[in-house]
């Protein structure tokens, strides 16, 4: 399998705190990779470095063979990396359909046009994305009023509108009911299987991690402490220690309690918090 994403020696500091130190791993085409680790391990920082929100202090990010570290987020997005945020972020003042339409326009490089007529909000592509996300009933609802789970689905549709070759999903299952999280993850894995889209997701819910990942990368205090197939990770003593000596529970034993609990039940149009 050829690597679509390669991180080598990524280091990022915030003042005196080193959030990432020498992080290296790769994601193959069509592969589902879980990035796990305790809170503060550096998962979100890692995502932010990959998508260009943060610049690494050292190291390199290669996407499809080309260096992308130091590029602007929008440039990286246009190369084919899409992402979601821990707190699902949508365009609060727009309807679901309008939001998806603008994401489609951005992919087609039409987002800057102001002399070519109004934004088309009805097209096969948009309808397809609305249907794929299962939000037909919400298509004309304003995003700021979406429930937490619906906002996550809509955000995923926004990401898919960009036709990414790699999706970064930051805690996709957090705050979702078990059924909802399974549906969401099945969608993501179907995408990986059928269209060859690579997925890198961070997650606390172990049922999700071990139920869906092809491979698991474990971060602890900014260092990759393990990288391998789910079975090997579950058996790893190092990983168990990183999780404060707690043995990693079996997938079907976790249920809703295995993940971190999500914030309030209502979706938010606010900006995701960085860091």
């Amino acid at each position, binding site marked *: 399998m050829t690597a679509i994403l390669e991180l080598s020696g990524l280091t990022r500091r915030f003042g005196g705190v080193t959030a990432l130190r020498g992080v290296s791993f790769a994601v193959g085409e069509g592969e589902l990779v879980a990035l796990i680790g305790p809170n503060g391990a550096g998962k979100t920082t890692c995502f932010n470095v990959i*998508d*260009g*929100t943060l610049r690494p202090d050292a190291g390199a990010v290669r996407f499809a063979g080309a260096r992308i570290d130091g590029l*602007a*987020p*929008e440039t990286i*997005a*246009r190369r084919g990396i*899409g*992402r979601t*945020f821990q707190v699902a*972020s*949508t*365009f*609060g*003042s*727009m*309807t679901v359909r*309008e*939001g998806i*339409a*603008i*994401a489609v*326009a*951005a*992919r087609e490089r*039409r*987002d*800057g*046009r*102001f*002399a*070519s*007529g*109004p*934004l088309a909000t009805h097209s096969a592509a948009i309808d397809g994305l609305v249907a794929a996300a299962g939000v037909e009933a919400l298509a004309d609802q*304003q*995003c*700021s009023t979406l429930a937490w789970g619906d906002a996550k689905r809509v*955000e995923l549709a*926004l*990401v898919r*509108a*960009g036709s990414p070759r790699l999706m970064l999903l930051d805690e996709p299952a957090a705050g979702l009911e078990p059924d909802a999280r399974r549906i969401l993850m099945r969608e993501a894995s179907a995408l990986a299987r059928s269209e060859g889209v690579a997925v890198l997701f961070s997650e606390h819910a172990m049922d999700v991690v071990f139920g869906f990942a092809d491979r698991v990368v474990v971060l602890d205090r900014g260092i990759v402490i393990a990288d391998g197939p789910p079975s090997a990770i579950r058996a790893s003593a190092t990983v168990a220690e990183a999780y404060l000596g707690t043995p990693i529970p079996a997938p079907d034993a976790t249920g809703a309690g295995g993940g971190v609990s999500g914030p309030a039940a209502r979706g938010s*149009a*606010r*900006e*995701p918090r*960085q860091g």
Partner: protein
Amino acid sequence: MSLASFAIQLLNGLASASSLFLVAAGLTLIFGVTRIVNFAHGSFFMLGAYVGWSAGHALAAAFPASQLAFWLAVLTAGAVVAAIGAAIEALILKRIYAAPELLQLTATFGVLLIAGDAALALWGPEDRLGPRVPGLSGVVPVMGYRVPVYELVLIAIAVAVFVVLTVLLRRTRFGVLVRAAAENRELAGALGIDQAKLYTAVFALGSFLAGAAGALALPREPANLAMDLAVIADAFVVTVLGGLGSIPGAFVAALAIGVTKALCIAAGSIDIGGMTLALPRLTRVIEFIVMALVLLVRPAGLFGAPVASTPTAAHEPTRLVPPGRVAAWAAIAIALVALLLPALFGTYAAVLATDILIAALFTASLQLLTGSGGMASFGHAAWFGIGAYAAARVVLAGYPFAVALVAAPIVAAIVAAAFAGVSSRVSGIHFAMLTLALAQILWSAALDWTPVTGGSNGLIGIWPPTALADPSHYYMLTLALCATALLALVAIAFTPFGYTLRASRDAPLRARASGIAVGKRRREAIWLSAAFAGLAGALYAFSKGGVGPDSLAIPRSVDALVMLLLGGLSAVFGPLAGAAALTWLQDTLARSTEYWHAATGVAILALVLAFPDGIATLGSVARTLRRSAAAVRRRAVR
């Protein structure tokens, strides 16, 4: 300049800085905690001076030849103004915290208008010079110069207030709450802080400082009706330059401005390569130059933490609804009335409507920037004024009228593109203040660059060609151009660009992650908005037969904000409704009462409270009607 004189000038700078700090400290507290752009803060300062003057006179009889009268007057002024401030917060602002933050600015602007007329009614038009303070009215010799004792007292008071505020903020529970609220509003909410009480308390404290500062200014300047506006811009500069909510920041910023001003005055005129540069002339805008330079290097001010929130971001974004059938019919109806206006209501209606249309275009250009783009601007008059001056210069250079109308938006757009490039790192309230700085610098340049701009008198004789000389004819041209431009702006709002702009406002990180070049779109919005404002400026110049520095001045920028918020930040017809309301109100009130500023202020407050989403938002109107009906019903039941 001798060393001694240099040292004394530093001391002078320190004294002015102290005075400035006392006003700005209150503002930075209010601003830092509540994020309210409180235009009435200058009015609090002015009211403090007047109350201090009256109290001083009353108390002087009770305590003849004693300092006590003065100090009691200062405390009285502080207390009275604190009560006024707290009342305004509790009775007016509290009702609109859920609205866009710029709406609170609009409300405080209404308060400013009322306060000015109240002072005129209570104290009359004449300046009121306070008596000198017994025991503090002399001078002390310092390095061979006579330095007024009171200036040293003022410095001491500023240091004392600084220390007290610092201790208050660092060592008390109140201070912890204030700092928490200033640094992170959501966190403060999560900590279970009673925001309602905290906001009222902070408003009272900030107003107390402003009122006391006003009374403390009395030994140096008479209480007068121009104090409010004279101090407010500087106080904001200090607040933003120092960093929002930072008392040490305000202290350092006030010091920087006070000392820079004093040194400019001391340096006098200097020769650089045959050119004479009169540095004292710079004192008019030096605070804005300093602030602009600092913000370009440190976008959050000297002591400020980077603030992501823009003045409009905290409130739930309103959807800009694409105009449907009703809006289309409304537009057609408005257009029909507009076409028949001169025939139906005579020439003056056309004149007034010309002003309304130009104001609507100017406001709509701000709506693109602030409404869709989420970039508040306190200096939008910059583009209006550039357009007006450019049009005037083009005509004076002998080119036809039509060329001027084309050149004006282009010139404004070019300057705006340059400004957008320079200011790309600055956002939120800091961006708003940077636009203000630009407008103020241009305003000052217009005043000083007499050969090109005509100086303070401006340029006159800029009338449209003979065929359009009749106001009704010029109105028709304005109607055609403004209607086209307004429709173009509405259309732009629903193009991919317009949606992208709002997407970038709603969730910039989400937008960038979707491949949207947020920075580029914002820069485009700046120059596009400037082009429309420039066209409005050009039309204005020809409708008035001239252009002057007032076209660049703060009141014009404020008018645009007020009209935008009155009409509705996210309402398609908002700019037109807001411009019509404010222009017509002023025109009508100015001729019916001497206290027409206050009347306008009351009307603004009433509209803001009744229609927080703007008078052009149908939902808002319907809500208000429902509420009124319900109120009537309730009363009927009783």
